[in-house]
């Protein structure tokens, strides 16, 4: 039997890096095949080549035994390949059916959309693969897991029988992951071939038949999932032991650095995005905030930083009421901030590094003297950050755009920590950076904690949250629903709090909102 996909000697070079170096991959028909590797190993590039988004520099690609050359995703779709992106590409205001047919609408005579035929086809696709959705639901009303199902159906609707799923579990909680896996097995039973990209080892072992490990752009090996353990995989991925985010003994003091009392933030529709949230962070403490994205964590952080107005409550920083203080005042008073999206909120991509290092601290030395920017002082400080936080760059005069994601993040963390804040708000500090940089960021946070900083950590990486935090609070629908001891919980139990499944238990057990 010919393989569904056969890649031979695929090589792709980018300026300064070889993203894929002689990659060989064979995916049999009807199997679930995981592509495993750390961030930056070259998984995404490989998938982009397979999906026609980028041409390979060298190598051949065979789909169902035939040599193909894709110049765009359209070619890939015609060959029966479909991609489910990590970030959903759905029009929120449209129904499921409208989203599914978007871009490949069946038309009646006169150019009108044939909704009847579309719905019929959607039903057939759903039945043959065992996926259920209500075609008339508005996408904005769906849960994350359901949205992902719509994405998968969208691909199947276009006739794909080879599915690429790019880190599909990144946005899901454990319960939703199980649901996804059930769906994938049904797809497999229906005859689909699935390529599953991930770096979470347990998941990979659970779902896939075979696993191909990629490290530094090279295919290391392909193994049967039954024959390896998570530890084996980890070693294959990194080439050595995995770093762990765990912290040592507690450095928590009883000095309250940040106190949030009854804070409420309403969204555009007047609904509370953050609903009467109270929390305290002590010096030397890392307080983790867990929650599925969209449960008010972003709004809570914005309220603390001062970019989002509050409708109720107050915020105290070292005893000073900063409820109505400007962002600048708060930052000058000692709030360091690592935004969740470094490129859109943390950097001036077209400005040199030394100007980026000044952002948020431009009112203070060494970045300025009075009304004027101190160029020499700024450069010197940036050089210091570069050395101390291992920002790999040819000089401090290149633009921030020229750095890799991990180095951009190290620059941001460096600039915030060298400013010696009292409270350090870090939102997803290791999102989208490679394992090496991740370990360094964890180290920086541990060190800051040891130096008496009060850290508020928001992360979707539950291992990171459990490993680094002294306490974890869970946000659900804008409220704090539980306070947990990271020493006593697993990602799984934390996940059940995040979905609200353990809410009843929380009410009788730990008390989330203290008086």
């Amino acid at each position: 039997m010919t393989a569904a996909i056969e890649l031979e000697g695929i090589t792709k070079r980018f300026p300064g890096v070889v993203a894929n170096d002689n990659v060989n991959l064979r995916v049999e028909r009807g199997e679930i095949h995981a592509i495993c590797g750390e961030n930056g190993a070259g998984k995404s590039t490989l998938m982009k080549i397979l999906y026609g988004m980028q041409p390979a520099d060298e190598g051949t690609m065979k789909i169902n035994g035939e040599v193909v050359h894709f110049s765009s995703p359209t070619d890939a779709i015609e060959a029966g390949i479909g991609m489910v992106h990590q970030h959903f590409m759905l029009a929120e205001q449209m129904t499921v059916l409208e989203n599914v047919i978007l871009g490949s609408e069946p038309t009646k005579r006169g150019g009108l959309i044939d909704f009847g035929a579309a719905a019929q086809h959607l039903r057939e696709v759903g039945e043959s693969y065992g996926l259920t959705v209500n075609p008339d639901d508005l996408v904005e009303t769906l849960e994350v897991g359901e949205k992902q199902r719509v994405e998968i159906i969208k691909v199947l609707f276009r006739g794909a029988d080879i599915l690429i799923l790019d880190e599909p579990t990144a946005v899901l909680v454990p319960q939703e992951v199980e649901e996804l896996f059930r769906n994938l097995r049904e797809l497999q039973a229906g005859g689909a071939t699935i390529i599953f990209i991930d770096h979470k080892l347990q998941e990979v072992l659970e779902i896939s038949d075979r696993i191909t490990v990629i490290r530094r752009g090279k295919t290391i090996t392909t193994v049967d999932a039954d024959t390896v353990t998570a530890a084996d995989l980890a070693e294959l991925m990194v080439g050595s032991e995995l770093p762990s985010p765990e912290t040592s003994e507690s450095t928590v003091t009883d000095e309250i650095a940040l106190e949030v009392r009854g804070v409420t933030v309403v969204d555009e529709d007047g609904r509370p995005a953050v609903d009467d949230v109270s929390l305290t962070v002590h010096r030397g403490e890392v307080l983790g905030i867990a929650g599925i994205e969209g449960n008010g964590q972003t709004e809570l952080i914005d309220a603390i930083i001062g970019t989002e107005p509050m409708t109720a409550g107050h915020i105290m920083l070292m005893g000073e009421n900063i409820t109505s203080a400007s962002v600048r005042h708060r930052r000058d008073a000692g709030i360091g901030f690592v935004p969740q999206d470094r490129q859109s909120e943390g950097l001036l991509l077209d400005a040199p590094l030394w100007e980026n290092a000044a952002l948020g601290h431009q009112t203070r030395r060494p970045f300025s003297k009075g009304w004027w920017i101190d160029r020499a002082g700024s450069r010197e400080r940036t050089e210091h950050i570069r050395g101390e936080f291992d920002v790999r760059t040819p000089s401090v005069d290149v633009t921030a755009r020229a750095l890799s994601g991990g180095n951009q993040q190290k620059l941001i963390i460096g600039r915030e920590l060298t400013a010696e804040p009292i409270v350090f708000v870090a939102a997803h500090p290791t999102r989208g950076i490679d394992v090496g940089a991740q370990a360094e960021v964890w180290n920086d946070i541990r060190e800051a904690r040891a130096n008496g900083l009060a850290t508020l950590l928001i992360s979707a990486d539950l291992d990171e949250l459990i490993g680094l935090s002294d306490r974890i609070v869970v946000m659900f629908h804008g409220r704090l629903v539980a306070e947990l001891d990271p020493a006593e919980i697993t990602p799984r139990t934390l996940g059940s709090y995040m979905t609200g499944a353990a809410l009843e238990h929380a009410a009788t057990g730990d008390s989330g909102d203290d008086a």
Partner: protein
Amino acid sequence: MNTAVLRRIGLAAAAPLAAAVVAIAVSSIVLEVSGSDSIETFRTMIENGTKLESIIDMLNRATPLYLSAVAAAIGFRMNLFNIGVEGQYILAAFLAAVVGAQVELWAPLHIAVIMLTAMVVGAAWSGLAGLLKVTRGVNEVISTIMLNFIAIGGLVAGLLPRFIDDPADPNQGTATIAESGRLPDLNSWVELFTREITKGRRLTGVFVVALIVGIVYHVVINRSRFGYDIRASGMNPSAAKVGGVPPKRMVLIAMAGGGLVAGLVGMPEILSDTHAYDQGFIQGLGFAGIAVALLGRNTAGGMAIAALLFGFLDSSAAILQVSALASSEIVVIMQATILLVAVIAYEVVNRIRQRDEVRRAAQLVEAAS
């Protein structure tokens, strides 16, 4: 390394060079098609343009263009598309002429009163658009267009009849400003280095004002904290906001600041030329300034070169009209072509430069590790 440096210099020169070559090519074609001798036309333009009197004319034309460009650029640096310079400077010039004609003072004071009136009016009119944006979320493009109409078609057209000095004059205007409110010309300064300036050409004293404005603009934008905040807001408004830059206040200050400079655009006419606001008052400088700002990439030096170029071309138009070699509209075609090509070329060069930088950083990092 040497090739990299050469490459960077080449890239920097590429955009203006491409713009010049294409503009000359396009206008040559237009000239030939319309039956003019293109070589002779260019020769005449250059020959006349290098005469001392033409240079003075060029500087006189470049002065208000430059001020107008700086006025627009202050907003552009923050991604505020302030296209209201037109209305701001006309309203400012009119009111400054009215106020200036009411009084007779010690000369420096009189001139200061006129200039300050113009600047305050410009700032207020422009600030209005800023206020609408921060309080009501009105897009500044729409509000400044509307304010242009209100200023020119409404206020100035409506108020001018009340201040007509001599109804019998075919070119009705406000009363002429007294001698003390006139800015001396700079001819004696220029003549220190050159021969005597003839044909009654006089270099406007506002030229010095434009120089000062350019230097202040450069220093404030590039060296001050305030300039940093402006540039940060322009490059990435959400990062600037998180970095403590107050967005609303910046919008207000940038709009008002632009208006402050816009108020000066009409000053060569009021202080050095007609000494009154009349029906022949020069219009269109606000929009021309936008073109100059675009061409000069909002930098003080770039806009100066662009203003001089546009001043030269405007001055050539007058010569072409007299010599009957070609239609003077050819100059407008050249200006438009230069602008269009330059803006495209800047974008292309910018992308190449970004790609270069990413590659260079990656290589150096790799070499170091």
